[in-house]
């Protein structure tokens, strides 16, 4: 059965009363993901916007059992839950829900450990490319050139490519997605849920406040990120890479939309100079070259 977008948004486990900002990409992601996940899941929410979005305890707008934990604790806490569920003979998926700060920075060791042990958990990184919950400071996942509150004149280093790091762990499933493409995201989550072992899905979540665009434009920005090939959509299953249809055109540089279209729709790249744009393009080119080699079967991470 194929669902229309409206069906997707109505068949979720996100209840009214969240304290998210208008246009929040994490809320959109939760709606889509919960539709795909269904009932049998426990969420571990790592410190970040989602710790707040749920609303004030003892109530919660996420209609799942939720364990909120300290920043670096997500993958390990989920490993414990998965083990407990196994001993109880229950078929329940432990899902980590973390931002990019919790993933790329403070939680990296714990994430890597859980991946190495091939824990039966699903790790979802909702990547809004900065520490938005604390007011928009740079993280390891902020792209080069983007201004944040701790890099006011633009970040000097490239975005940490976490999906690549996860592929190098040779876990059963790694995927990237964008809130601009709900069907693609749903399919990937459905697949990840069925995997026995570790799966990692990173969802690009354009944030109207940190990225500085109109809250009504979240989906548009999320789409542009994919169309300009800044954000790839792929899945890596048991060593085989599949590029999602939405960005097959990125494999050839000549068919990509210019990255400027993605940059100029947001305020955080306003002061970016030609040199930085060039460096960002180089990062994107290099990423796609690796993806192309993997896609052709000539490179395994």
């Amino acid at each position: 059965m194929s669902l229309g977008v409206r069906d997707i948004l109505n068949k979720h486990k996100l209840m009214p009363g969240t304290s998210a900002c208008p246009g929040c990409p994490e809320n959109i992601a939760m709606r889509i993901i919960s539709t795909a996940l269904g009932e049998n899941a426990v969420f571990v929410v790592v410190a970040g916007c989602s710790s707040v979005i749920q609303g004030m305890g003892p109530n919660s707008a996420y209609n799942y059992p939720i364990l909120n934990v300290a920043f670096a604790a997500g993958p390990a806490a989920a490993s414990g839950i998965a083990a407990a569920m196994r001993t109880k003979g229950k078929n329940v998926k432990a899902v980590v829900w973390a931002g990019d700060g919790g993933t790329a920075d403070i939680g990296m060791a714990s994430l890597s450990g859980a991946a190495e042990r091939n824990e039966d958990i699903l790790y979802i990184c909702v990547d809004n490319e900065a520490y938005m919950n604390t007011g928009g400071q740079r993280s390891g996942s902020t792209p080069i050139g983007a201004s944040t509150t701790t890099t006011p004149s633009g970040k000097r280093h490239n975005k940490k490519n976490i999906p690549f790091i996860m592929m190098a762990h040779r876990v059963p499933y790694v995927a990237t997605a964008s809130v601009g493409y709900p069907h693609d995201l749903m399919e990937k989550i459905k697949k990840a849920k069925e995997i026995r072992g570790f799966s990692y899905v990173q969802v690009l979540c354009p944030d109207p406040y940190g990225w500085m665009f109109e809250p009504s434009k979240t989906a548009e920005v999320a789409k542009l990120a994919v169309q300009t090939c800044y954000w790839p959509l792929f899945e890596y299953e048991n060593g085989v890479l599949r590029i999602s249809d939405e960005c097959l055109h990125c494999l050839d540089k000549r068919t990509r939309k210019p990255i400027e279209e993605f940059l100029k729709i947001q305020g955080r790249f306003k002061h970016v100079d030609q040199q930085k744009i060039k460096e960002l393009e180089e990062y994107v080119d290099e990423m796609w070259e690796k993806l192309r080699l993997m896609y052709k079967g000539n490179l395994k991470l």
Partner: protein
Amino acid sequence: MMEKVISGNDAVALAVKLSRVKVTGIYPITPQTYIIESLSEMKDRGELETEIIRVESEHSAMAATFGAAAAGVRAYTATASQGLLYMHEMVWWVAGSRIPVVMTVGTRAVGPPWNIWNEHTDFMSERDSGWIMAFASTPQEAMDLSIMAFRITEDERVFLPMMVGMDGFILSHTKTRVYVPSQEEVDSYLPPRRQPYVLDPEDPIAMGNMFSPEDYMKLRESIHRAQIASKEVIVEAGKEYMKRVVPIGSYSTLNESYKLEDADYAVVVMGAWSLDAMQAVDELRKEWLKVGVYRIRFVRPWAEEEVVKALKDKSVLVLDRSVSFGRGGQLYTEVKASLPDADIKGVITGLGGVSIGKNEMKAIIRKFVERPQGIEWFYPKEVGKIELRSPRYIK
């Protein structure tokens, strides 16, 4: 029940097995490593039903253990020193969630400089985290307290985690005679797992999301009240343990008194060196010195009434194997707070593995009796001045 000659670490590993722990998050750190190795060996031999998660850090060890406990099963971990400090954040997280978890701390000095030997500073640094905190004085007691811990933490009047301290190397590695209960005895003692809430898709609840300031403060008060209420639970659990499991020990009180009734002087100690103190007291009594020992077994809850009853009207000497810098010994400050007007002196010694046995105890007690002032830090051997800079050869 059977008798075995085993180390403190072995005794704790057996306690974990007998308590039918379901999940344990493990990470090696000296001197508790042997516990987790022993559990892993039992697992490989097919003798252990526990799921072992071999995590990548102590922070994760506590997080994994917490996750399992939150999902409704008995969960355990062990650590020491730097490891305990590294998991400090999650230690607080567990108590704040009111989730029963049991942990062994094989006590050890904290760096820098590197030091693997025993002291109590690591353990004492968790005093305010909300955990129930017991300290063993023998391998037997390490095992007994670890089993009791599950019953205490899972009592609805408590619902707090508990750590059991055990002197690194002195207890963890020394083999001695231990009465090991049978599985049936422990089964008859430990009721099925209970906790205030469980992660379960059939009843989705959120744990640990934002609270209003008032609700947050209420929760803090509830932890405080649960600590106080746990005193009764601990005594019940102790008596029941002596009845059903191991018919020796002195678990009908939180702390333990030794030759205190007629004593003029009381020595307050905690951990393995309590036995040295008792031997010292036996010998000093032959010299007509009326001295007794008061052994702290529970740091939290603090046994205020018992402490006051045992120590009032006596000259008190508190021996600390830990220090609150600029303030003094940590047990000293606790005892002083219970008896503000009493004659209490404190001595800090035995840090970082400085060896204190019966003879050193005797020397300290004698000094205290003869010259009540003037001893604060005790070194059994002559020590030179510490050079903070490495000395350089200068022409």
